[in-house]
């Protein structure tokens, strides 16, 4: 399990100018300090928060100062489109290559990048990752301005910018699509442009595009500014952030607030707000978070959006169940708990699984019925059939669970089938649920999935991932197929909270048996509608030649039939709907690849096609922008004629540069030393390597020594006797 250390602020390597003088020693010292401090040097999502990293070949990347940032976000129902413009300055006297690291929400899709160097605007286009990288490297070697956006991890991207001139300011505009998070009726949006405490570059750790002599220290006054380093919170760069959010919630809005920043909210309409920072600009020293809630409503509210993309129309419907959907009398439930006690669950996982199951048993009410199945390579059911949840039965089940020990193989198929076996498939008025606790360490996923798909009937399957669960994606898919949900329990202290959340879902399904039917032909995702549990919205995306006809949503709310017919021509215009659809399809293909429904190659081909069609940065595609004309060392004058000088829409120089329009601040912000953080960012979540040493030699040595000592003593004892 890739243990994630809680980043210990006190162990962050403190700058040490004397040691960092040397380019090679700097990172080494930082790494050593991190090692001795006993923790992971830093987490990528901490470090890679939007700082330009200047790189020298072979050297560790170091961060350059960030100057100013502007964020413009449009929220369209369940999606948000963010345009982040950041201005950086090359403070050295050298031509440099900058690598810009930025963390994004895990489900964010970067689909556009624009770069302005001096007065040149370069718009990136999407290419296959390798091809993009090659084109970028070639342009870099030829002295052309070029930029490359790559996905390093689903939530970590890099921008590389080649040939930034001495003293030049670089503007980077990234546009991405983000999904609004929903939880218990509250929607929230997080803007990850936080400036975690920055350190100024170690001395000349820069890529010298000109291969010239060693660059001078970018912070000649490093000694003079050494004091602020001690307290990054108080002496950090000002780094002003301006922000505007157009909030089109898709439903009548209740409260709109931010827990992180003071905001000003303007009412545009019942369901629309315009949000700006109350102070105009703020120091970007923490994530910005905006939350909003719907006005209380009786029936599910539906948000309907459309966007015309590439000759077709993408439609997005969002269904939010009503907040007061909890039925007056809870529906009685039949619950089958399945617990994995195979060898891979040994240790902490087994304890967590047992604790979770006991919590589940405790929440059963009189009138509910249940059974417990355990499995390793064999399986055992506590009762021959489901039994009433009375004290006698519960006590017996609890004793059984408490006595479980982890050993043996993982034969998941038989217990799964047994749990899905429904004696009375047509019985109405009772919920049938399977709670499946496992680490998912299996190899026959395809069998599992087909068993779920063919055998689920009215049963809902709730996967509970225990421990590190490397198979988390599969668990998610199993829950999807089983129309349940996936809960991840990674440590013992999460058991209580996560299980409570799950059990609340189990007890109050808001909308079941959902179907979404378009009257016209449409490519719909998801292909199978999930049940909606408390606080969860349904998001249906479709692509069709023209958004006309109707979308019929039907289902049952707490047993009562419910239906809504939406006229597609009434859909509001929304930004990024096409991307949402494409991203959902890419997610489907990634799942298919992992589950073996598609081979790696054909899934990759499908992903590549979708990514190229919709301009999305993925595992396989990158955005690359290349200037037409070499500029180094002749400067920008020659190149100016070849490129449009118009600023693309969305660029706000005033926001970026201030009303004076002064392109470059007279003085760069205070710079501080680069810590170990940037080194780590290149590997956001590297493969954790297992322990691969045994102690048999030392055991053998100690054993032999003890044996020798014993024999010697025995000889002594005999002589004495």
């Amino acid at each position, binding site marked *: 399990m890739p243990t994630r250390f809680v980043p210990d602020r006190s162990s962050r390597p403190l700058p040490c100018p004397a040691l960092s003088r040397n380019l090679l020693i700097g990172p080494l010292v930082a790494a050593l300090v991190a090692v001795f401090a006993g923790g992971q040097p830093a987490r990528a999502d901490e470090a890679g928060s939007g700082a330009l990293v200047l790189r020298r070949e072979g050297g560790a990347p170091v961060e350059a100062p960030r100057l100013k940032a502007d964020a413009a976000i449009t929220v369209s129902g369940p999606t948000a489109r963010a345009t982040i413009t950041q201005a950086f300055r090359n403070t050295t006297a050298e031509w440099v290559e900058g690598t810009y690291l930025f963390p994004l929400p895990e489900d964010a899709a970067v689909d556009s990048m624009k770069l302005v160097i001096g007065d040149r605007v370069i718009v990136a286009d999407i290419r296959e990752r390798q091809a993009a990288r090659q084109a970028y490297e070639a342009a870099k070697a030829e002295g052309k301005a070029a930029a490359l956006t790559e996905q390093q991890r689903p939530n970590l991207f890099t921008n590389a910018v080649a040939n930034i001139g001495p003293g030049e300011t670089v503007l980077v505009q990234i546009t991405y699509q983000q999904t609004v998070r929903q939880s218990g009726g509250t929607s929230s949006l997080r803007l990850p442009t936080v400036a975690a405490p920055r350190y100024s570059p170690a001395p000349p750790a820069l890529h010298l595009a000109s291969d010239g002599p060693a660059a001078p220290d970018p912070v000649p006054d490093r000694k003079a500014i050494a004091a602020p380093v001690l307290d990054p919170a108080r002496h950090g760069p000002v780094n002003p952030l301006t922000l505007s959010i157009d909030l089109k919630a898709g439903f009548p809005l209740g409260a709109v607030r931010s827990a992180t920043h003071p905001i000003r909210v303007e009412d545009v309409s019942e369901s629309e707000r315009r949000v700006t920072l109350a102070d105009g600009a703020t120091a970007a020293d923490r994530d910005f978070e905006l939350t909003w809630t719907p006005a209380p409503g009786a029936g599910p509210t539906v948000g309907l959006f459309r966007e015309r993309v590439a000759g077709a129309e993408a439609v997005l419907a969002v269904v939010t169940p009503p907040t007061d959907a909890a039925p007056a009398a809870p529906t009685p439930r039949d619950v089958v708990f399945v617990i994995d006690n195979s060898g891979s669950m040994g240790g902490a996982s087994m304890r967590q699984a047992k604790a979770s199951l006991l919590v589940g048993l405790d929440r059963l009410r009189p009138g509910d019925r249940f059974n417990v199945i355990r499995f390793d390579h064999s399986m055992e059911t506590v009762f021959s059939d489901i039994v009433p949840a009375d004290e006698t039965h519960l006590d017996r089940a609890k004793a059984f669970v408490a006595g479980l020990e982890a050993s043996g193989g993982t034969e998941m198929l038989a217990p799964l089938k047994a749990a899905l076996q429904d004696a009375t498939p047509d019985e109405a008025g009772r919920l049938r649920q399977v709670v499946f606790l496992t680490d998912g360490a299996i190899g026959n996923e395809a069998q599992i999935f087909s068993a779920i798909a063919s055998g689920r009937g009215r049963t809902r399957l709730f996967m509970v991932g225990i421990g590190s669960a490397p198979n988390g994606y599969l668990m998610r898919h199993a829950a999807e197929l089983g129309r349940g949900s996936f809960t991840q329990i990674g440590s013992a202290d999460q058991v209580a909270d996560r299980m409570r959340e799950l059990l609340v879902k189990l007890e109050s399904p808001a909308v079941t048996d959902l179907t979404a039917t378009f009257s016209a032909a449409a490519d719909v995702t998801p292909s199978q509608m999930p049940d909606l549990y408390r606080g969860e919205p349904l998001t249906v995306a479709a692509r069709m030649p023209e958004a006309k006809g109707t979308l019929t949503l039907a289902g049952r709310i707490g047993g009562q039939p419910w239906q809504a017919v939406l006229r597609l021509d009434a859909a509001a215009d929304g930004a990024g709907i096409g991307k949402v659809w494409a991203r959902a399809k890419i997610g489907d293909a990634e799942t298919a690849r992992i589950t073996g429904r598609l081979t790696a190659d054909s899934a990759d081909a499908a992903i590549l096609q979708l990514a190229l069609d919709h301009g999305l940065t993925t595992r396989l595609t990158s955005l690359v922008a290349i200037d037409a004309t070499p500029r180094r060392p002749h400067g920008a004058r020659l190149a100016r004629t070849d490129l449009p000088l118009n600023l693309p829409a969305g660029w706000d120089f005033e926001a970026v540069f201030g009303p004076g329009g002064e392109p470059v601040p007279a003085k760069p912000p205070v710079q501080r030393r680069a810590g170990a953080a940037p080194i780590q960012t290149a590997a956001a979540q590297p493969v954790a390597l*297992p322990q691969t040493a045994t102690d048999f030699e030392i055991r053998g040595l100690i054993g032999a020594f003890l044996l020798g000592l014993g024999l010697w003593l025995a000889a002594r004892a005999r002589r004495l006797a």
Partner: protein
Amino acid sequence: MTRPVAAPSGRPPLPRARGRGLAVAAALLCVAGLVLLGQGVWIPAKAALAQGLLERAFARTLAGEGAVRPWPWADTVPVARIVFPRLGEAYVALAGSSGQALAFGPGHVEGTPEAGEPGTAVYAAHRDTQFRSLGRLVPGDAIAVVRRDGRTARFRVTGRRIVRWDASGLDPHAPGRRLVLATCWPLDGLVQGPDRLLVEAEEDAPTEP
């Protein structure tokens, strides 16, 4: 410590008692020593024995029987045979890199692709059993991985490096088709430590049927 001396008065209970105590201590030490020695011998013996069983199970997998458990209570299945042609060594690797799997053979680290698939496949094994050989691999050496589907992916060693276990910098989804073999570092270390030796290799031709 005073040496027990036979009492001249003809009263030997003290030395006898002391002798008995020594005999008990000696017996305890011998038992502890034998247990530890046994464990010490059992670990490599288990690894060696297991390879035989794994080889048999993997042969059946290659013959088309699908995933075959090497012994009925095993929690893992053989997934590949890693061959070091120059050293004349071959090891059958297991699915997963839990301690249970690694006790018997190299483990295919979870979350990394199979060798020969796009990305970086990572296999780990104990430094004192199968992957002691990693120390003898040099850049340019061939490594072959026979996969479950019978295909053989061929790699060439490009280099080696030492990393911390939690900072490997390995990206399973990195472009290209790569293979990384990992084991504990230093190879002759006596105690368990945080460092790992990585031998990195790149596929030199598309997989052959």
